[in-house]
């Protein structure tokens, strides 16, 4: 507060021609309270290293981030630096909000990026890089060792020997009859029904079963999302729910390690590890996502940093992004949060994900099974339609009907935007 007052004083002094005004850059971000505090610290450190720059942080809650961003666009108050969820990148670049980031951040940062990190920051039309992240992400299958041993389950050691669908469903059935297990699996329905988690975590189940949210060549959803493999996959998930194998939505998000360990398995994000391991100690095993069909699939992509076209000081914005990604505090906090490496130097620094580490399987998935969410500007419509369909199916709706409706909604949105040129010519 005192600092803000000081900068106002300084600014007014500058009007008088006495001192030079500071350059202000605005940084928009999301995150839980721990992250918010960390970003605040980093901003202070950057200001200390660059006395002529003021960093103003703008916080927007995770679940309403896109709404808040739209509001910023409408009121012409775009930040200089923004955190963004990777699958929305195509929409932002297509709409003209982001600028190529390669010339703005340090070369060694770019050279440090993993394949998957580059993939999540790249716009498919011009193949240019628009965002950089320290981290990436994945989803794994956590298991409670005690329960798994009690039913004699095979525990896969690498992505190549992941459970098959038959094994997985067989174990769910056995677990449902085991004493002490209230629910065989938590798929984190507690995150809500309007959350990117749905598309992020359940999308790979479709891809593994042999279909997708949208055809990535013709960019048509009808014929893909409502195809037989997709209908079959979601009917399978519906069965898990109606069999009461899945933790219900209103039971919160920590049934895996809550008192008495009521859930035996958890289909959870890498970020869940820190908390779960701290509570479960040696009882936790980390396994690759099961193979539900012809191929293995896992999600990737996370919140990464981009620089907007509205920035009046893109060079300083780039300097801030480079500073942050190299900052020790940022890395320490990310590691504590079991952050999934997106930079090679951070991976080398993360024993959790190294070969032999407890989350090695998660890192292995990145190179073997990771499939990015559709990089298309219609992504907001795609994910929204899919969330609606999943809610309906999990509550007893007909899978075929719900998916057809979603697919039609997606195609309608693309049509309404004239095919999002030049994506319509991209076949």
């Amino acid at each position, binding site marked *: 507060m005192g600092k803000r007052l000081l900068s106002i004083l300084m600014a007014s002094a500058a009007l008088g021609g006495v001192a030079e005004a500071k350059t202000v850059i605005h940084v928009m971000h999301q995150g839980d309270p721990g992250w918010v505090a960390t970003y605040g610290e980093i901003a202070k450190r950057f200001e200390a290293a660059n006395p002529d720059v003021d960093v103003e942080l703008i916080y927007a809650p995770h679940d309403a981030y896109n709404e808040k961003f*739209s509001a910023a666009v409408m009121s012409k108050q775009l930040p200089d630096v923004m955190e963004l969820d990777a699958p929305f990148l195509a929409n932002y670049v297509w709409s003209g909000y982001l600028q190529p980031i390669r010339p703005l951040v340090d070369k060694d940062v770019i050279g440090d990026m993993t394949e998957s990190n580059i993939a999540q920051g790249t716009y498919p039309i011009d193949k240019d890089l628009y965002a950089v992240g320290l981290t990436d992400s994945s989803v794994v299958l956590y298991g409670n060792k005690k329960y798994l041993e009690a039913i004699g389950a095979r525990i896969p050691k690498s992505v190549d020997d992941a459970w098959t669908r038959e094994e997985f469903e067989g174990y769910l059935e056995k677990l449902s009859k085991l004493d002490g297990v209230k629910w065989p699996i938590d798929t984190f329905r507690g995150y809500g029904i309007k959350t990117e988690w749905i598309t992020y975590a359940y999308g790979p189940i479709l891809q593994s079963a042999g279909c997708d949210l949208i055809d990535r060549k013709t960019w048509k959803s009808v014929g893909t999302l409502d195809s037989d493999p997709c209908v079959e996959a979601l009917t399978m998930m519906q069965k898990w729910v109606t069999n009461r194998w899945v933790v219900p939505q209103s039971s919160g998000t920590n049934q895996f390690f809550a008192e008495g360990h009521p859930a035996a398995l958890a289909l959870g994000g890498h970020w869940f590890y820190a908390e779960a391991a701290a509570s479960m100690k040696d009882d936790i095993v980390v396994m690759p996502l099961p193979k539900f069909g012809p191929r293995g699939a896992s999600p990737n992509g996370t919140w990464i940093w981009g620089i907007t076209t509205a920035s009046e000081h893109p060079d300083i914005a780039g300097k801030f992004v480079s500073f942050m990604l190299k900052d020790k505090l940022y890395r320490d906090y990310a590691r504590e949060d079991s952050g999934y490496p997106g930079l090679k130097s951070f991976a080398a620094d993360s024993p959790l994900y190294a070969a032999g580490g407890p989350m090695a399987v998660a890192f292995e998935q990145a190179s073997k099974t990771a499939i990015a969410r559709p990089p298309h500007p219609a992504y907001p419509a795609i994910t929204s339609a899919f969330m609606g369909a999943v809610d309906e199916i999990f509550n007893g709706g007909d899978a075929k009907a719900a998916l057809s409706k979603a697919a039609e909604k997606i195609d309608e949105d693309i049509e309404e935007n004239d095919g999002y040129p030049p994506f319509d010519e991209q076949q």
Partner: protein
Amino acid sequence: MTLQQTAPPAVLARPVSRRDKGRLFQEIGMLAPAVILLTIFLVVPFLLSFWTAMTNQPLVPRPTPIRFVGFNNFLRIFRDELFWTSLWNVSRFTFWILPVQCGLAFATALLLHQKLPFRNLFRGLFFLPAITSMVVVCVIWGTLFQYPTGPFNQVIGFLSGGRIQPIDWLGDPNWAMFSIVLLSAWQAYGFQMIVYLAGLQGIPDELYDAARIDGANAFQRFWHVTMPGLRPTHVFVLVITTIQAFKLYTQVAILTQGGPKSSTETVVHYMVRSGFEEQKLGYASAVSVILFLIVLVIALLQRQLLRRFDV
């Protein structure tokens, strides 16, 4: 209205004197702020939203052109099953909330109108939920509703000796809207209660005295003095509650996001969703125009209906 009271037509028919003219200017001057503000913040936005509803305007600027699409948005809304579901849901909500909330408000108002000790303290306590933010109420009730081990389920389990299975209040399509009704009625009844209290205080004591002298018992006094005396209050409360019920949004946005299985999707939630999540501003404007017309029709119908009862 004010114009007519101070300057009836007979006065206007005469040649306008300087004094009358002065008075007219004064009245226009006093009306001006309200008229200007209402025009800027109500009339113009409404006309704008009607215009936007006829285009394919996106929420944020896009590289594709904005086109005039006529009534396409409206046709598309009427074809969307989800819109009809949301309309059905708010109707259900209204149907339940009217008796629950107004009944609760009326009952507490009657109670607090008695000469109880600490009456004002109780009035304040009963009004507390109404001044608590709906968001806070939702977060608290969200915990109370937890399945299967939340406080409500614990109490039900205890009272029924474990015979009644825990209820998935917000996660079961058959229960979710009802749970929202309970919470909403509890949060908002304080406002209607205050209105009823005011109405009760407006009934002159002489009427009760006269009724007593005529030998009317407590119930007769209630039925023949209190109820007729409250008629305008009933109309007001009914109209206000219905209109508010049709605008149901906050509770749904926080607790259920329209689910499960669209059982709590409401018209306003549907509008915000198409406008912000799917970024179709034109489409969302069309929904808002429809909602406006629906509320207007309901308000007019209610007035007509209740006026008929009055005669």
